[in-house]
């Protein structure tokens, strides 16, 4: 159960609850079905509703970034809470993925 919106070639995903290794696997499975559609050019993760994230979330986002990049698409992130952002910064993810204001 992914909370998303598809509009003008962009998939917006609003992540919520606890993003751990278990949940990352579920998100990946659902998301890869969605972005298999070649008209999808951009993927946006909204982390604002996340209550918890560990490094499994980083792995999941890097994986989707590679997929999108391989086909000339892009990935962006709308930042989450303090601890989530600390993990994002630790991982240097914002050096390769756009951080939206």
């Amino acid at each position, binding site marked *: 159960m992914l909370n998303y919106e598809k509009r003008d070639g962009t998939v917006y995903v609003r992540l919520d609850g*606890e993003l*751990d*290794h*278990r949940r*990352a*696997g579920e998100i*990946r499975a659902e998301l890869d079905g969605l972005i298999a559609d070649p008209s999808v050019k951009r993927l946006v993760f909204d982390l604002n509703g996340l209550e*918890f994230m*560990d*490094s*499994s979330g*980083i*792995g*999941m986002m*890097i*994986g989707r970034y590679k997929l999108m990049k391989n086909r000339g698409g892009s990935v962006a992130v709308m930042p989450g809470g303090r*601890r989530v952002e*600390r*993990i994002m910064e*630790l*991982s240097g993810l914002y050096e390769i993925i756009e951080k939206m204001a």
Partner: protein
Amino acid sequence: MKTVNEMRLDFRSRPENEALARMVISAFMMPVNPTLEQLGDVKTAVSEAVTNAIVHGYRDRKGLVRMRAWLQEDGELLIEVCDKGCGIENVAQARQPFFTTMEGSERSGMGFTVMESFMDSVDVVSQVDNGTIVRMRKRLTPALCLMRDA
């Protein structure tokens, strides 16, 4: 240092037990009124260690993960996460940021780095084919004078 409270949780190497371990460590800390900040930090570190035991230690095979925790009189929390899985050949290398032996499974290699960043100290003892013990410490304030001793 005197131990005020202690617990031990054994559970199967199943992904849904990552959430179990996080909830249990939160519940264990509750009587000393941790800040939300401390709760979140500790839950994150525990989540990393437990996920590693399940994903790397047992490589998704069936096994038991053990989490032990102690609250000390001086307000320090000790946590140990153990598995009897495959062990780590080179611990120093494993602790490097971005190092992972599971590229295909989308692990980021940031697990140990996250543990180190959210806890005061992280020790890793591991033996190939024999398993891994991750020991973490974090000082919680205020001190444990709130708890009666039993």
